[in-house]
């Protein structure tokens, strides 16, 4: 049975402490700039805050993973290199990377430090994963959310590194690291700036009849009836019309959230080393609630008890949950 590490999101120092206190085995976080894919306003860590956070986590037996998982545009590579140097100096336990130039720099400049391959590298075949293991010494791959349990079992046999999969949180089916939808509408890039449907371009408009539209850069992404749950205007979660779908439909994905708690025993059995909880942009109450619930579940499974996950419906956007691709391929 694998260690079944819980990898938990830390958007702010307070959230990091909350996650560690709630039982995280590791926390992942980023700096307040474009070097990570959750570059949201008011979120993330200064170097001083990271230094304190590493001390707090290590004192309680938890690891700190620094996300450097965006793609430096030509001419700006130094920002990522400096972030890596700072991370090493502050004692982080691993970097989560996607760009080959960033991976190469860290592997050569800081050969001892662990490299984890971000889902932003979009490595979904054993060959792609082995490319990164072979060339950069990657020790763990975060698998895209699109693989089924049988596929995970197969991949496990063919790759030399550990596997980490998402277990809870916001669910997107666009291949991460290959998406410029946000840049197309707003001029800020997911890959280069670390933003997705940025708040600076978001607008909610309430109408006379009680309905509410969400817009991004003036494009209407969705419209909610007076009693309908609302959502954030993430482009791939919007409703659009097509020639034969004039009524409007979720062209890409419904705003559901991933929750694989019921599949934990099978996933552990399939050889998954670590479980990632998504949500660096979520609140401390989310972190506390989700991390403690999964901590309990993992501890139960490892002790041979049945896991009992409390109802986390209210914390999921749009308040619908899915087991995603993990059970069946039918959704493709």
């Amino acid at each position, binding site marked *: 049975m694998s260690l079944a590490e819980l990898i938990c999101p830390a958007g702010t120092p307070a959230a990091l402490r909350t996650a560690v206190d709630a039982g995280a085995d590791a926390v992942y976080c980023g700096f307040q700039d474009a070097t990570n894919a959750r570059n949201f306003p008011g979120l993330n860590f200064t170097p001083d805050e990271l230094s304190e956070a590493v001390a707090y986590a290590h004192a309680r037996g938890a690891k700190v993973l620094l996300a450097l998982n965006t793609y430096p545009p030509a001419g700006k590579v130094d920002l990522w290199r400096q972030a890596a140097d700072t991370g090493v100096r502050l004692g982080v336990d691993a970097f989560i990377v996607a760009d080959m130039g960033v991976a190469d720099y860290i592997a050569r400049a800081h050969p001892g430090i662990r490299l984890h391959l971000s889902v932003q590298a979009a490595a979904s075949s054993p060959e792609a994963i082995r490319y990164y293991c072979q060339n950069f010494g990657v020790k763990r791959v975060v698998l895209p959310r699109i693989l089924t349990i049988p596929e995970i079992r197969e991949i496990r046999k063919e790759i030399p590194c550990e596997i980490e999969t998402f277990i809870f949180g916001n669910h997107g089916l666009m291949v991460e690291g290959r*998406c410029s*939808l946000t840049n197309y509408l707003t001029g800020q890039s997911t890959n280069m700036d670390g933003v997705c449907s940025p708040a600076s371009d978001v607008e909610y408009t309430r109408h006379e009849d009680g309905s509410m539209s969400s817009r991004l850069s003036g494009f209407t992404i969705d419209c909610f009836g007076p009693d309908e749950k609302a959502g954030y205007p993430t482009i791939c979660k919007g409703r659009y019309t097509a020639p034969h779908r004039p009524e409007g439909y979720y062209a890409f994905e419904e705003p559901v959230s991933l929750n694989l708690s019921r599949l934990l025993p099978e996933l552990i059995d399939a050889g998954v080393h670590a479980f990632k909880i998504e949500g660096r942009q979520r609140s401390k109450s989310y972190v506390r609630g989700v991390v403690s619930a999964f901590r309990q579940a993992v501890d139960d499974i490892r002790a041979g008890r049945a896991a009992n996950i409390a109802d986390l419906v209210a914390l999921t956007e749009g308040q619908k949950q899915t087991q995603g691709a993990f059970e069946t391929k039918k959704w*493709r």
Partner: protein
Amino acid sequence: MTRLTLGPIAYHWSADMRRDFYARIADEAPVDEVYLGEVICSKRAPFHEADLPATIERLERAGKTVILSSLAEVMLKRERKATENLAAMEAPEIEINNAAGLFARGRHPHRIGPFMNAYNEATIAWMAARGATHVCLPAEMPAPAIAVAAQAARDLGLGVEVQVFGRVSLAVSARCYHARAHGRTKDNCQFVCEEDADGMPLRTTDDRPILRINGIQTLSESYVDLLPETGRLVADGVTHLRLAPQAVDMVAVAQVFRGVLDKRTPVDEADARLARLSGDADLSNGFYHGAAGYRRIAMAAPA
């Protein structure tokens, strides 16, 4: 001399449509290089793979350099095998769009496709050291980054390519959105993507055109038009300019670009012609100018 290229066909055009298309390209289009192959969906490949040898021969006879492009998303066994097979080819050149292809190819010469995220000089240097001879830059890169990347690539002896016409790829997925729109899944899609030769249009619920669907791919609604910017691109070191095939007269499009590159046609006149050739499609150049991709930024004076 700057080379004009024709990118791989993104859409699911029938074998007949492709044959006619490439015959005209071979005979009439002033393009120097043509990329062939299925980049988006492995289910489509059997429909036109059989024609590949004849198409390659036809294009090469007409003096075009042919390159085979690999799949952007590689997951299923048949996709991994197809990528491996492509990587084993001695000729023609291949363009790799997935790390699985890089793994299979090793250090044999290859081109880096726009899906490989070669955004910066460090990544380009890494790839060059492992056999890359040419890099096509991601479509969302702004001008200053293109200039630095192009310089770095040139210093290493690589060709550098930028897409200057046609819809740009904005996202790919494991899920097929064409099938989904028709209530199906990728497994039982019945190739409904064939109905949309220029992509399936998506509009917002208040009726504004926004995106195009092509199988697992999401494309821009607008056609990129960097015709006025070609002078600056060339001056910054870009060696190859890519035209993405759309369901318009691509021979005429190529002629317009060739006319500007050869300095036979004034840019304003050429761009007006390009707009007419593009039909109802909006033209955009936002990415290049560091703005939202859908926007059209007027240049003070074409370079």
